[in-house]
């Protein structure tokens, strides 16, 4: 029977390979500096997983994932900033006990929407719920009215632009273009030390695997199949008795929550949050990572985020001028020749050989099937 197992064989191999790489090989072989870089790359993998669900499976291309990444990141940053702005730490300010940038902007008390972020549980809830709520509003407004495809992409892009201008413009409340910086401790635990970075890395990897499993679960339920069905024949789904809009809203909200978790982890790993992760350019870059990894593959998205960012760091260290040429060309190549990205190449060219080598007579893997199907549009 199809789909009777949670992971099929190649997916299980992919999962194990990733687990060995992230949990054993990288921590053993990299110094803490490089490991922290990997942790930074992996925060984009969260966004990628969400994009696979909503773009690869649901056919909804959002160019505004930076909004959710940013919302999650800002929620976390607000909590950390409040902790760093204790009265003792800020006694040279004219109003001690509020974040430094508020003091510079003549605020004399904490704005109301900052107050809940004194509490860690509320912060955790906010990281998940604020972006989900935001996505729900956007999604409900757009999908109920059947705004889709290109229009959805452009409107999400506009929303990313609006949020950036707002954050930059309201610097007394948001820290402006500098963002929220100088974050120090989480519940009294100094997150800047090497030791903390090491632990945070593992926390993040575990969360990432949690998200992979959650995404895989969604993919394997009937909802996952409806998403695929919807991408191809939206009307047929509608005339099979489903509210297409509700399913799209769900996929969009799920993607938003994944992105927000990534954003919150980003704040913890990097130690600050700024509007430069909210805008259009980072949002499109997140789509690029996903496309390069393979928009149809959850693991592909993780690999895409890792490899593109790794290439970015190493190429920009040695050939800063060439980096943008390389990225642009890579991207065009992926779109033109390999619409399913690295995972498509793997499924089309590498996996069959392995299968032949193993002389396996099993039926085609699910990943291979998807790669054979029509591209997303």
């Amino acid at each position, binding site marked *: 029977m199809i789909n009777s197992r949670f992971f099929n064989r190649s997916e299980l191999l992919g999962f194990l390979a990733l687990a060995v790489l992230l949990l054993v090989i990288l921590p053993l072989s990299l110094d803490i500096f490089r490991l922290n870089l990997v942790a930074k790359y992996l925060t984009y993998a969260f966004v990628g997983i969400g994009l696979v669900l909503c773009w690869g499976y649901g056919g909804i291309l959002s160019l505004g994932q930076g909004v959710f990444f940013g919302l999650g990141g800002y929620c976390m940053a607000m909590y950390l900033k409040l902790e760093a702005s204790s009265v003792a730490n800020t006694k040279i300010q004219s109003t001690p006990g509020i974040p430094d940038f508020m003091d510079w902007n003549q605020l004399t008390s904490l704005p109301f929407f900052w107050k809940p972020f004194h509490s860690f549980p509320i912060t955790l809830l906010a990281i998940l719920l604020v972006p989900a709520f935001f996505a729900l509003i956007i999604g409900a407004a757009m999908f109920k009215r059947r705004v889709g495809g290109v229009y959805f992409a452009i409107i999400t892009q506009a929303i990313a632009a609006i949020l950036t201008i707002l954050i930059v413009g309201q610097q007394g409340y948001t820290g402006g273009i500098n963002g929220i910086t100088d974050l120090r401790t989480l519940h009294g635990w100094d997150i800047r030390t090497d030791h903390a970075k090491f632990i945070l890395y593992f926390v993040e990897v575990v969360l990432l695997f949690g998200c992979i499993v959650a995404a895989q679960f969604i993919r394997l*339920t009937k909802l996952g199949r409806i998403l695929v069905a919807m991408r191809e024949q939206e*009307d047929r789904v509608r005339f*099979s008795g489903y509210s*297409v809009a509700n399913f799209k809203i769900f996929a969009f909200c799920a993607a938003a929550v994944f992105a927000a978790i990534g954003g919150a982890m980003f704040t913890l790993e990097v130690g600050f949050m700024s509007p430069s992760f909210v805008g259009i350019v980072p949002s499109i870059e997140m789509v690029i990572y996903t496309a390069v990894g393979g928009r149809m593959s959850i693991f592909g998205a993780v690999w895409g985020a890792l490899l593109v960012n790794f290439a970015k760091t190493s190429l920009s260290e040695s050939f800063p001028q060439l980096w943008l040429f390389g990225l642009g060309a890579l991207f065009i190549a992926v779109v033109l020749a390999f619409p399913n990205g690295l995972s498509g190449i793997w499924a089309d060219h590498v996996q069959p050989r392995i299968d032949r080598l193993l002389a396996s007579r099993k039926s085609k893997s699910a990943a291979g*099937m998807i790669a054979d199907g029509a591209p997303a549009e």
Partner: protein
Amino acid sequence: MLVGHQPKDFLLAVSGLTVSFDGFKAVNDLSFYVEENEIRVIIGPNGAGKTTVLDLICGKTRATSGSIQFRGQELTKLRENEIVQAGVGRKFQTPSVFEDLTVFENLEISFPRGRTVFGSLTFQRDDTVKQRVEEVAEMIFLKDRLNTYADQLSHGQKQWLEIGMLLIQDPDLLMLDEPVAGMSVSERAKTAELLNRIIKDRSVLVIEHDMKFVEDIAHKVTVLHQGQILSEGTMEHVKNDPKVIEVYLGH
């Protein structure tokens, strides 16, 4: 408004239905009634508005004015999925199946359970589902292809699959848009056999050009012309209607 008819008497009561696209009235003040277990065929020349009528009933196109009552429920105010849930099934002219899914999955999606977001997340593929899917697959001659991805089916098989997807919905009113178009002769015969089987125990609204096929199945025929009813009645009656002859032969 409906003199002499209680809407309850009919399964489907279309009255005064009008839709205009930029001033062009594709369907103009159309009224007709379908009874329980009736098989109604709509015929008419190209551009007569046949497909538009089905689009209007299933909610794909919104009516400019008029009403569509299904078991006394006003359909023009419902969304497509609500219309389906009310018991109206629709097959499109070109086969629309989910090519990236297997035959089994195609049928399973149409199974009328777990149609909400939460329902689909918790949907279990239990024995009832499997049984029903296999049952329908057998009817549509695809029993041995359950694990085949739909993009590998032939054109005729896709048509069958789509009919099967409707069948598993078990609608009270089944609307078919040229179900035998584009089929080979042998497929056509098989399809006719299939249709004859599935139209039992429910009302059916069919658009078809194949007159032989129409004669075989139709209880009543409605002839559309320029968005309006030209003639309605038994096949015999319609065939001999001078207006129909005029329109069909006058061209």
